[in-house]
């Protein structure tokens, strides 16, 4: 996983609430067995509309998505995270995220940033007025800054450490393989196996 410390980029305002992962990437895109090529599926139904904000030339090359409340609800498909990353997003800022989407993002190094709804709306307005506006997201300082303003955000220390170091979760867990073995010795004898 690519480490995430500080990122500066332009943003796209997506003024919709409850954007579920079926909208981020429709099911027909889930048939792939590889991990690449999902950028074409990102918001594919909505992108057919020329007025959809992602089609606005002013926002081409943006790397920060400014979303509405409850972004990424619904299906557990990690393809939603892959699609956002492969399209070029490094950060999604929203007032609230679906739990699984948020988890999947932090596993892949796409940073989900929770800011109060009023701050997200201010950011969206600022970007609508000036699409070239640069926003800086500093994970080490847990702070988003733009146009002389800034707002702090919360993220737990462990996830922040993992992301800033770019560490592989499985490798970390396997350091505790002895604990797993010890736990397995004490499992209840009636627990089922699939064989």
């Amino acid at each position, binding site marked *: 996983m690519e480490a995430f410390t500080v990122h500066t980029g332009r943003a796209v305002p997506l003024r919709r609430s409850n954007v579920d992962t079926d909208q981020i990437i429709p099911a027909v895109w889930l048939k792939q067995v590889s991990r690449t090529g999902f950028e074409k599926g990102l918001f594919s139904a909505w992108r057919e509309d020329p007025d959809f904000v992602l089609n606005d030339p002013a926002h081409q090359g943006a790397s920060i998505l400014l979303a509405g409340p*409850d972004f990424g609800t619904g299906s*557990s498909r990690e393809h939603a995270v892959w699609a956002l990353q492969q399209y070029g997003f490094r950060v999604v800022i929203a007032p609230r995220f679906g739990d699984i989407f948020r988890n*999947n993002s932090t596993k892949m190094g796409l940073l989900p940033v929770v800011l109060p709804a009023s701050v997200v709306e201010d950011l969206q307005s600022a970007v609508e007025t000036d699409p070239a506006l640069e926003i800086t997201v500093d994970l080490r300082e847990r702070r988003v800054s733009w146009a002389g303003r800034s707002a702090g955000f919360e993220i737990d220390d462990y996830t922040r450490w993992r992301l800033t170091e770019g560490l592989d979760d499985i490798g970390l867990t396997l350091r505790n393989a002895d604990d797993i073995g010890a736990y397995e010795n004490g499992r209840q004898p009636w627990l089922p196996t699939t064989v």
Partner: protein
Amino acid sequence: MGRTLAEKVWERHVVRRAEGEPDLLYIDLHLIHEVTSPQAFDGLRMAERPVRRPELTIATEDHNVPTVRGPIEDPVSRTQVETLRKNCAEFGIRLHPMGDAGQGVVHIIGPQFGLTQPGMTIVCGDSHTSTHGAFGGIAFGIGTSEVEHVLATQTLPAYRPRTMAVEVAGELPAGVTAKDLILAIIAKIGTGGGQGHIIEYRGEAIRGLSMEGRMTVCNMSIEAGARAGMIAPDETTFAYLKGRPHAPRGEMWDAAVEYWRSLATDEDAVFDTVVEVDASALTPFVTWGTNPGQGAPLGSSVPDPDDTGDPAAARRALEYMGLTAGTPLREVEVDTVFVGSCTNGRLEDLRAAADVLRGRRVVTRTLIVPGSMLVKLQAEQEGLHEVFRAAGAEWREAGCSMCLGMNPDTLAPGERSASTSNRNFEGRQGKGGRTHLVSPQVAAATAVTGKLTAPADLV
């Protein structure tokens, strides 16, 4: 202070706890299907890691499978299913492929085999894993990176969610089902209301539900934003489990039941959030919008967006759904009826639909899709397929089918369905398709009239 059911099950599975880190949680059962697993197996291969406990893992083919007999026509779907077969063979995982008597939707087969038991931790790369919480375990959906993590370590690092009690007082009136109840609960707490929580469903109406009904309720916890939903195990749970292929036997059964009884939330335990619902006031419930929280009693009308909590979202939803505020929901005409999915694709659901359709004719395209091959077999032993066919409905093979339209069962743009599944998102059942979530009873009655209808409305 006493502990809740969720806290008891969680604590029992903590492998490692360290200050400032998530708990490392042991996973008792890992369910796998073709859609969210291929990249996880690839990851294992790249890192040259084995599957730690293949015997705690089980796989099925469900999302892509056609529900008419024959091979998968779509080459991309076929590749995905073949990839699962290859991966399961390589890593030694039990698989129930298409055509196998044990095949079915991943959340139907776990309980059916008795693999889903009280007090367990169960995960799957699928958000409706919450279904299994009906037995009193912690069951939740995970992404593909986490699927790989569980395959490699049989554990997951996770922070313990907060606890929410949904207290359902009173009894459900006749003709009101578990599906109506959960749709009403979601409309009340909202699609984000359960975020960061495990919901425990409690109270008289919950105790009165069958295991099938409890699974319907827990299944849709994710639609309220909660990752897991659970119900304390009781005599209904034990009676359902006893004698199933993977349930404990003999002395083990007695020891297990004794432990399972100890899991119930202590009387002095405190939940972080409590929501109260009066079951006796409920009536059949349907959705009108494009998220499962946008629902209303069937007897009411399409709401005015300004009267809803999120007017902008409601306006967008009505435009997508082609509905006008003030239209009575009973006048909404549908083209297709779908009975099936991990929400309502069990035997009890098919019986309920058959009871409505017996001696009647459908006027819509009507798909009846059993949740598993075993459900199909049992339904046929009871002659339910004859009832459906005589009514003009299509009786299909097991799979996810029109729940998400990855196989050929889809809505055309603008088509409208009454569906017993769990998601009415834009395009969920096919691009441009419009979905109304309903119970199996309402689905069947709707098939008879062509408009959203409750069985009680039929003469």
